[in-house]
């Protein structure tokens, strides 16, 4: 402010027509800062608003996505995990018991849905045979992103006692990517809830 009046026109950035104020042409041998630096003092008042909006906007988008939006989405996603409501074998009994009054999986926001298009997580609860394999893949592909898979029980994890049988898929990870494996034959409802909490930990660390 104390600069002489004669030097003020020299420090004012000259914006040629067609170039943007916020991203001037880079000079050679000069490192570009991550956020373009703007000499606010030299801006006209009508140039200040778009320049500040652009500078703050990139900051907000960059920082806000990683520090605000993504945690909020992860928080919302991991507290409303909707599994696909289907049962393959005896693990489905434990799966059903987990939603009863005694264990009450709904307190974690886990509500089974009957359509794969409303689901976030597919809990493969039972022995997967080759006959049902392509139906499982179809259901998985019908689920919207983001989606996760929990292999519940020994059969879905690795074929279980039927691993060498002629009709059993030796592990559902041969068909779809699996995020959490739950051991047990069948696992108790507490184990299923523990698997869901493990999946919630995975979602908490999710970056994108």
């Amino acid at each position: 402010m104390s600069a002489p009046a004669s030097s003020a026109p020299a420090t004012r950035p000259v914006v040629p027509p067609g170039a943007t104020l916020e991203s001037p042409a880079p000079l050679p041998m000069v490192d570009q800062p991550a956020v373009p630096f703007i000499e606010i003092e030299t801006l006209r008042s009508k140039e200040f608003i778009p320049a500040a909006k652009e500078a703050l906007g990139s900051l907000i988008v960059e920082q806000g996505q990683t520090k605000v939006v993504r945690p909020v989405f992860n928080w919302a996603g991991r507290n409303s995990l909707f599994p696909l409501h289907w049962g393959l074998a005896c693990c489905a009994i434990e799966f059903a018991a987990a939603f009863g009054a005694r264990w009450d999986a709904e307190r974690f926001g886990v509500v089974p849905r009957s359509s794969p298009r409303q689901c976030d997580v597919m809990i493969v609860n039972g022995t997967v045979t080759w006959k049902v394999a392509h139906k499982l893949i179809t259901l998985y592909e019908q689920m919207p992103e983001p989606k996760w898979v929990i292999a519940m029980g020994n059969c879905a994890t690795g074929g279980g006692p039927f691993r060498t049988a002629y009709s059993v898929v030796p592990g559902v990870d041969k068909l779809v990517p699996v995020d959490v494996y739950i051991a047990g034959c069948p696992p108790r409802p507490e184990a299923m809830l523990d698997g869901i909490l493990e999946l919630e930990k995975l979602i908490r660390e999710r970056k994108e």
Partner: protein
Amino acid sequence: MEPVDLTAALGPVLGDRLLGVEAFPRSAGRIRFERSGALDLFRAVRDSLGFRHLSMVGGIDWTDHREVFYVVWSDDRREYLFLSTDVPADDPHVESASGIWPSANWHEREAWELVGIEFDHHPDLRHLLTPDGYEFRPLLRSFKLHEPEELEVKTRHV
């Protein structure tokens, strides 16, 4: 109800294709027949003797030959009847009973895919329990347990 004389009822129909009539526990008996007389026997058993319900069809692998057996039930007589025929292992063909008893359809599909019995003139001989394109006959005694990876390669149609 009077026990039915199976030999007198089926002998004129089948002739020498009727190989034997045996007593069988908790049933009207067990009929062994030549496979060429299958349809004649089925019609006679259903229409003349009144065994109108086919309870099951199965196949057995006896290593040197295979056996196809039928279990039929009569609502009037309240008892079962067993029919059985032998087929050679290298030519396991038998006429389908689906035209006589429609419930034979799925039973024959199962016997075909698991034991390898070929049912001629079956209306819909597809895989029932194993996936389409499955190459094995897993209930044959010659079938060995495979490593999972080996099976996976051969059933990679999914």
